[in-house]
């Protein structure tokens, strides 16, 4: 018995050492390893395999659950991530801290596929550091069997009629953001007075709220156990598909527009291969594959053309007209972030 265990142990050790083999240049002249750092399930795994086959570069694929976690890892060092997928405000924060490498547009010919309205946004004015990956809006998903009449305003989330039937997002920026929007303020406000007013609104709303959630609220909506929830457009699309009684609306007061991007952090040792990967991700057929897998809206116009008619015509995912009129993009708040956190703690701990 003891022998078996020791043999097993040695075997495991050898295997574990073999797992981290050394990288080197391959026949096509590329370094043969690339470290990609992404949200979980945010890419079609097939795409990674195709990339490996085409260029002979092995993709080391690692995941994170939250922008700040990723930031902490990049800041600390000790890692060699080549491509990351930060959200818009995180792109901005990372640029300001000098944590991103400038992209060489000559190596990204497929950048032409990105729609004009998704280029040069305030978080990265000349797209010097990032390329958009997916985008969407925030809004209310509601059950048409439980909610009567027209829903077009954030006010419904404060309606006493739906006491205990309202789900909010457990995310300080988003939930405080819509309270600010409802009051007619910017969701990037740095005015303490405006923030305090939003706090009072949310404290008044708390007795009506069933839960502050991030993931499982979707199950509640499908099961018809809540009347409405704050949600992102990508998820809304999937929810409506599951339960046809549900509907999604972007309130008239305006909302939040979000973008997730691809960028190269300063930890990267292989920028050329990282750019190769990003350009590959911008190919119409690759971007379309990812859009089909994740079901979020792609900013890649050429890829959009490859998607089915139903999807493109769905106004939930792809609102018509000038999207910038629908809402605001989050700006990184710098040191003011702690005020949002204090307010959020006060609301939740009440």
């Amino acid at each position: 018995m003891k022998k078996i265990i020791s043999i097993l142990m040695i075997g495991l050790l050898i295997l574990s050492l073999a797992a981290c083999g050394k990288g080197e240049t391959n026949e096509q002249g590329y370094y043969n390893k690339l470290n990609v750092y992404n949200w979980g399930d945010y890419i079609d795994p097939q795409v990674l395999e195709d990339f490996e086959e085409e260029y002979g570069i092995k993709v080391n694929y690692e995941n994170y659950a939250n922008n700040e976690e990723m930031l902490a890892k990049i800041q600390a060092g000790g890692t060699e991530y080549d491509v990351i997928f930060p959200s818009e405000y995180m792109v901005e924060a990372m640029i300001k801290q000098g944590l991103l490498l400038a992209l060489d547009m000559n190596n990204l010919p497929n950048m032409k596929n990105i729609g004009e309205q998704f280029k040069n946004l305030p978080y990265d004015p000349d797209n010097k550091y990032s390329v958009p990956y997916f985008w969407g809006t925030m809004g209310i998903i509601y059950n048409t069997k439980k909610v009567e009449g027209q829903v077009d305003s954030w006010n419904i989330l404060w309606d006493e009629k739906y006491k205990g039937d309202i789900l909010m997002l457990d995310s300080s920026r988003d939930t405080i953001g819509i309270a600010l929007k409802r009051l007619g303020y910017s969701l990037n406000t740095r005015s303490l007075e405006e923030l305090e007013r939003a706090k009072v609104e949310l404290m008044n709303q708390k007795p009506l709220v069933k839960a502050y959630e991030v993931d499982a609220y979707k199950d509640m909506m499908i099961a018809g156990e809540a009347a409405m929830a704050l949600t992102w457009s990508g998820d809304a699309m999937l929810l409506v598909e599951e339960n046809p009684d549900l509907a999604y609306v972007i309130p008239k007061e305006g909302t939040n527009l979000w973008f997730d991007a691809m960028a190269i952090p300063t930890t990267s040792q292989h920028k050329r291969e990282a750019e190769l990967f990003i350009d590959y991700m911008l190919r119409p057929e690759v971007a379309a594959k990812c859009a089909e897998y994740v079901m979020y809206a792609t900013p890649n116009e050429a890829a959009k053309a490859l998607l089915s008619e139903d999807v493109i015509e769905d106004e939930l995912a792809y609102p018509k007209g000038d999207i910038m009129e629908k809402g605001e993009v989050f700006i990184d708040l710098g040191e003011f972030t702690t005020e949002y956190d204090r307010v959020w703690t006060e609301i939740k701990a009440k």
Partner: protein
Amino acid sequence: MKKQWLSVPYGIWALVFSIAPILIIAVYSFCSRSAYGNIIYEFTAENYGKFLEPIYINVLWRSVLLATQSTLACFILGYPMAMIIAKSTIKKRNIMVMLFVLPLWTNFLLRTYAWMVLLRDQGVINQFLIYIGIIDEPLKLLYSHNAVLLGMVYNFLPFMVLPIYSVLSKLDNSLVEAAEDLGAPPWQVFLKVIFPLSLPGVISGAIMVFMPAVSTFVISDLLGGGQTVLLGNLIQNQFLVARNWQFGSAISMIMIIMILITMGITSKYQGEGGGRQLW
């Protein structure tokens, strides 16, 4: 050979991987903060001062209360279970122990989601209760204090049962028999003989339940619907939302010092009063 030397490898390990990191956290807790939350090595005690605000003290109180409740619940549910396992035949014992930890080998998040399915308004438990006619209206089980408590008991129960079981399994049976022969009724045998002898196991179990319970955050987020903020949530938020590592570090330092002081007092009290140490 002096036995104390056996703990030298652990001593070195702890020095490098437990104490050094705590020192780093202690340094962070006294540092200032830049606009992007970076650590600036300038002394300040502000992070500790901030914790004295009423909302944070309130959070602390609630966390300690909840952890105490879940430790007690684990003890009350777990002790009889440990006794049952310990009294089974050796053949049965092993499988019963394995069956006790097996559920914990599936992912924590999935297990918690499964509890949400069970506890929902139209979930399995409510539907069952309505079906057998105990209730007419679904009970509000999910998103409550009790749901959080249940989640904690579910996840920490084995940490109470296993140490108690391992002590009970090798209890000196002659002592129990002697007490019985001398005419002690079963409950007295238990209270005066079995329970005191199993105390080291109970203490181990209580520590392994109480301490993680104080700092947990996922259970309160998911089963409590994010409506209760516990110490664990507070610390988590400082690191992952507010980018205020300094404050997060200060909170966890306060927690560590508080618990160490409590442990110190209890062990001293036990040492003098009972003439016996924790172990």
